[in-house]
């Protein structure tokens, strides 16, 4: 299962461009030479913007303005030497610098409770929107669009005019907001946000940033997203491999490897490991209905990632067949060098067959979850309580 979710600024802007949301010109570069060339084509001054997933780039020095060719080189170099989310910055967006008269904020998602589209809008945009939400909540307006209503710009024109936005800006603004609503549906987005959405010195309304969260479950409708740079940036090697194998990999800090089927069970297992005094190192969820190959691959990735003192396999078979899980374990044990304690717990669909397979290969299977967890915590401490 490929996980993309949040995409990079330039990827979000490419989506915006497809829907004619107004943007300033920009170019993606990976080194100073390209940055200089881009700034020559775009014209100075330019903004040099790190393409990273975490927010607050301005504060963290990941966005800088360059007014001369020398500054372009200097700022590009500076930013390319920085890190974000534990990785070096590899891509910059060189963008025409805008003269900003006002910064606005717009963000929207499907409300999980009502399924309506919930649109947040504020005439006070910029970097501190979460602070604003706390300190001046009345500065943020909420518009509700009932599910399925393909909203038109005039709807938002009414709303915005009621909030005192000027005639001149109300038209492009309303068009941008209604376009974003359309994009939620047609592009399968979980979140579409522009902050800041700026009014420049010519009175034009322009999307200066993008924050777009895609729905990974809809990848089959948008296969081009598999090639997004954000996809490769997001993951460690193990996460990437897990993804390719259709697994979910969560990095933690301890020394017990955890393999389970289902996220809820995984969380409860982690809770119990901590309850019994252990520390989970990672959590590999093979999901429902995992094949032997998937289980084996999960164990390979876990071993390669290293840092483990013991592994717990906690499988409760619903859609998953425990004979498949057992076969996967045996396969991994034979192929990869699993030299640490392997604590296995199997209950559910085809449990007897699973236990039998393990037994044939000299492996014991717990039936009780707490017993198995107590055991793996003990093993992680070298067999001592």
């Amino acid at each position, binding site marked *: *299962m490929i996980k993309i979710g*949040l995409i990079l600024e330039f990827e979000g802007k490419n989506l915006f461009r497809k829907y004619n949301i107004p943007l300033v010109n920009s170019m993606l570069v990976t080194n100073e030479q390209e940055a200089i060339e881009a700034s020559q084509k775009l014209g100075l001054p330019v903004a040099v913007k790190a393409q990273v997933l975490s927010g607050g780039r301005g504060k963290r020095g990941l966005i800088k303005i360059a007014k001369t060719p020398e500054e372009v080189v200097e700022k590009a170099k500076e930013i390319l030497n920085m890190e974000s989310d534990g990785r070096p910055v590899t891509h910059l967006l060189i963008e025409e610098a805008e003269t900003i008269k006002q910064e606005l*904020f717009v*963000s929207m*998602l*499907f409300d*999980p*409770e009502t*399924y309506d589209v*919930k649109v*947040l809008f504020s005439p006070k945009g910029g970097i501190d*929107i*979460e602070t604003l*939400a706390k300190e001046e909540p009345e500065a*943020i307006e909420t518009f509700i669009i009932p*599910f*399925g209503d393909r909203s038109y710009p005039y709807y938002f024109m009414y709303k915005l005019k009621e909030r005192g936005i000027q005639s001149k800006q109300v038209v492009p603004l309303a068009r941008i907001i209604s376009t974003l609503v359309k994009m*939620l*549906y047609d592009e*399968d987005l*979980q*979140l579409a*946000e522009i*902050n800041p959405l700026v009014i420049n010195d010519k009175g034009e309304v322009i999307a200066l940033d993008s*924050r777009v*969260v895609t*729905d*990974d*479950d*809809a990848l*089959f*409708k948008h296969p081009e997203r598999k090639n997004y740079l954000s996809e490769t940036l997001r993951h460690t090697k193990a996460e990437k491999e897990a993804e390719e194998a259709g697994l979910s990999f969560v990095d*933690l800090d301890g020394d017990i490897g955890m393999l*389970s*089927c*289902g*996220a*809820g*069970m995984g*969380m*409860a297992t*982690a*809770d*119990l490991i*901590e*309850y019994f005094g252990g520390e989970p190192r990672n959590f590999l969820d093979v*999901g*429902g*209905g995992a094949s032997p190959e998937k289980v084996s691959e999960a164990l390979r990735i876990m071993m390669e990632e290293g840092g483990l003192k013991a592994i717990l396999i906690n499988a*409760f*078979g*619903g*859609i998953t*067949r425990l004979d498949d899980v057992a076969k996967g374990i045996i396969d991994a044990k034979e192929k990869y060098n699993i030299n640490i304690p392997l604590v296995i717990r199997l*209950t*559910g*669909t085809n*449990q007897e067959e699973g236990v039998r397979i393990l037994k044939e290969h000299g492996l014991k299977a717990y039936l009780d*979850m*707490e017993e198995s967890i107590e055991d793996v915590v003990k093993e992680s401490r070298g067999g001592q309580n």
Partner: protein
Amino acid sequence: MWSKSQEEVKIKMAVLLTKDTKVIVQGITGYQGLFHAKKMREYGTQVVGGTRPGKGGTEIEGFKVFDTVKEAMQETGATASVIFIPASGVKEAAFEAIDAGIELLVVITEHVPKVDVITIVEKAKKHKINMIGPNCPGIITPGQAKIGITPGNIVSPGKVGVVSRSGTLTYEVLEQLTKAGVGQSTCVGIGGDPYKATNFIEVLEMFEKDPETEKIVMIGEIGGSAEEKAAQYIKEHVTKPVVGFIAGKTAKKGKTMGHAGAIIQGNVGTAKGKIEALQSVGVKVAERLSEIPKLLES
């Protein structure tokens, strides 16, 4: 003897699932569909057939295969359907079942696109059908029938209603209850997706009204605000004892879905917040799953 209003309630609960409910499997020729069709039949469920467009008129492992849901319903009298179809086909399959007039629809498939889920749920609401899922283990009425993937060997008939957001965790709870000699009236796995057809509140309402259910177990997890809303509902409408459990107490704070996500949802979503919300309305919250049977007794 039942009073009249209890009788009505009994009928309402029967709408979900009894040994008399006739069930079809959409996607019955698939690996998962066929495997679980057999498991359901073994458990006693009246699995009267299934659909696989293009294979109508054939049989597979004793199940009649139909091209369409409407034909399957007409020929078998089925009123319930369970969907075991890849995510990309779920919207069409669910629409077909709803349009054909199905009364109970259970969607097991995970990773259904969110816009599709919302569209399906809106249609189900409009047609006033009972829908569970997607990405859920389904329903089991111990000793009678099951629709979905809950293992049949971990349940036993009794008086505790179980409702859960998590798949495998549900099985764990059911097994613990059964081992402890605590039988279940019905277990509804509502599914772990943020968007879903049936949530805690609807099932709590059914359990509150169901004369077969005396106590309720509710399994939640971090994220969203469904448990908080359920707590509010319990306070106002539920008189039967509720025992709760929340998974994810040690989870790192996840990345939010962006500013709107954070602002809209506020501080709800943590295990701590959910546990406190439930405790504040009198729900006993278990720290470990294994404590649940004991908490039910007290």
